[in-house]
């Protein structure tokens, strides 16, 4: 039977692919959700129309990366999927409900007249709830999950504590940064001015929360502390916090010198750095401190089959995703587009 195991380290490749899929989701749907988080604070309905139009052609494709992350986890690491999903039953369900309200708001808002306000709020609170839950899931997972045998062994509410609430709020500010810098890039005039102000305001909070997470992670687990602060690791890892700090300074400057494109891409850079730091701290766990990516790996035949499809399809997907962003390049208008 078809098997690439003798030639490739399949679990490692799939671990990387899942990490990339989740990262793409966080960045791409991150700015969509960020726009939703900022939505009710926009100065006018015209601004809101522009904000919505700036992401309407993309949100569906962006959200698909979440399905790839979830589906990919199921396909490549079924054990991790089978442990994490029951453990995160409630936050995953709430996230899905949030995404439902956020998603239908796009279609309904364009059609609504008198009830438009309702869908404005469905869009905002859906985005807010989904983001809060994603952040709390992150906080719960890094703290660890009770496992016995091949199953989750904890309680339904293990995921709620002060730390996960903190990471939830942190992600809200993180996505708001992506959303506001996206709007700086994709809108003009009053909307852009407002987005610029929001971005500089949000930037401070992002820095604060990134600091808290960076300090708390090593404090939580001795192994993480050792990883970051022992020699010679410290020299290899030092560029991550330094680069992050540099990005913050640059975003701040760009927001005050009228640059339109760079703040968005540097905000992505901030996310990349945070993600990298997190990934290094959690390596090689899929369920932290319980199940590694090797232990959770699906049969090599299964990973091989899907890898062939991924090797062919992923570049194609990325190409036509890029094409769609190209088709809808330029500033968003406030007029109903269809």
């Amino acid at each position, binding site marked *: 039977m078809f098997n690439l195991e003798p030639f490739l380290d399949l679990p490692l490749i799939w671990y990387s692919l899942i990490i990339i899929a989740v990262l793409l989701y966080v960045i791409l749907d991150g700015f969509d959700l960020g726009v939703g988080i900022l939505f009710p604070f926009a100065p006018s309905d015209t601004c809101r129309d522009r904000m919505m139009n700036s992401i309407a052609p993309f949100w569906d494709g962006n959200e698909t990366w*979440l399905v790839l992350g979830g*589906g990919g986890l199921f396909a490549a690491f079924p054990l991790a999927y089978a442990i*994490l999903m029951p453990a995160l039953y409630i936050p995953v369900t709430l996230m899905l409900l949030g995404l439902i309200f956020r998603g239908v708001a796009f279609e309904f808002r364009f059609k609504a007249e008198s009830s438009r306000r309702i869908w404005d709020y469905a869009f905002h609170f859906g985005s807010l709830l989904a983001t809060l839950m994603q952040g709390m899931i992150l906080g719960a997972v890094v703290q660890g999950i009770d496992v016995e045998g091949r199953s989750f062994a904890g309680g339904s509410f293990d995921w709620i504590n002060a730390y996960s609430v903190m990471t939830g709020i942190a992600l809200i500010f993180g996505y708001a940064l992506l959303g506001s810098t996206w709007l700086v890039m994709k809108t003009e005039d009053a909307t852009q001015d407002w987005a610029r102000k929001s971005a500089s305001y949000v930037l401070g909070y992002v820095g604060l929360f990134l600091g808290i997470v960076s300090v708390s992670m090593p404090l939580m687990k001795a192994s993480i502390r050792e990883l970051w602060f022992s020699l010679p690791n410290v020299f290899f890892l030092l560029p991550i916090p330094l680069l992050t700090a540099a990005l913050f300074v640059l975003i701040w400057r760009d927001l005050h010198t009228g640059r339109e494109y760079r703040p968005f891409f540097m905000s992505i850079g901030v996310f990349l750095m945070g993600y990298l730091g997190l990934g290094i701290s959690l390596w090689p766990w899929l369920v932290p401190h319980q199940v590694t990516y090797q232990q959770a790996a699906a049969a090599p035949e299964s990973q091989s089959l899907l890898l062939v499809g991924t090797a062919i399809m992923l570049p194609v997907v990325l190409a036509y*995703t890029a094409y769609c962003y190209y088709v809808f390049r330029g500033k968003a208008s406030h007029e109903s587009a269809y």
Partner: protein
Amino acid sequence: MFDTLDPVLLARIQFAFTISFHIIFPAFTIGLASWLAVLEWRWLKTGNVVYAEIYRMWVKIFAVAFGMGVVSGIVMSFQFGTNWSVFADKSGNILGPLLGYEVLTAFFLEASFLGVMLFGWNRVSPRMHFAATVIVACGTLISAFWILSANSWMQTPQGFRLGDDGLLYPTDWLAVVFNPSFPYRFAHMIVATYLTTAFVVGGIGAFYLWRRKHEKHARVMLGMAMIMAVFVAPTQLLLGDLHGLNTLEHQPAKVAAMEGLWETQRGAPLVLFGWPDQEAQTTRYAIEIPKLSSLILTHDLDGEVKGLKEWPRDEQPPVAWVFWSFRIMVGIGMLMILTGVMALVLYLRKRLFTTPWFQYWCMALTPSGFIAVLAGWFVTEIGRQPYIIYNVMRTAEAASPVGSQPIALSLAAFVVTYGVVFGAGVYYIARLIAKGPAAEETAYGDHGVPKPPLVAPRVTAKGGEHV
């Protein structure tokens, strides 16, 4: 407060509810996407703006339905893990790659080009726009291919082995993907989605004709829908029959439940109606046609048909559900075929578009496809119980180690959310229908009437395209 409730039952209800809600939208959008592609092709080919106006009306309805399908579909991709984690762990090696292929080959395709289809009118050429429509239509079909393959494998599993660790391992991918029931289920379902769409479109067309509105558009809608009723509805009967024979071969208990037959017998009767009583292991008040069941299932008047008593009680599916759902599905199928016959007769008498009673009939059948699709899925999914993977894994062994409380609460949350979303979706679709095609263009545009001065100028491209 929910501790007395069985978590497995709650998880089953939750899955049944969320998947039933979800399937309504793909059942509509698969057919609608293909139809939109046909409309756009006709428009590009003939330059007849009526096609474009119909397209533009229905693409908005498509967007609403597709959006609801997407958000309810994402729920499904997580439910394997949240409610059925033991199943996910054991079958992940086999089903994981199939679902992975669905995401990679279909979901991205649909989601990305949907944006071009909806918002790309004045950003890409008409040809590219047509390509986007065709790509979205293909995406919906590819998606159906993978998910129906996965479902069919759970019905008729093959190409795997049971490992020492209790997990399932693939041994032959082609056997997994093209498992015995897959070709039949795929054909039956795709045709079902086409018929569902046809009867919705036909019903709306009939509504406009009855109201004497948008008559040019309504004739195209009703006409195209009736072409489907004439040719495709009988085809569906044939496909359903073949699917049934395949089920008889691989899942005879399901067929026995569909037929309401308890005793194994030669020359088995066809039970038209009756009340299957699982307690007493009999079908009460049965109205039967002698020997017809044997004739249909074995193509022989005295062929042997297995009865439900062949299986111990704990391996029988819930018979009444399967029995009645099957009758609803077949009954609607028959009404669809009858519609086709009536349409043909009326067409030959040149009264297809002017017969009021036929307009009422078509309006009444507007939701028929949805009911038939749901009933059909009830037959096949309830009919394979008590197994989640037929003869390999029982549903009761598949559930997550989650208590009743979170399942009951999340079920309630899904019911409320879906109720709100569905209500709003139906409301907005109804408003789009009430508005009709070319509502803005009727007074001017291509109809030779000068444009009123206060209307904003519209971009007019080749072929009289209104944006």
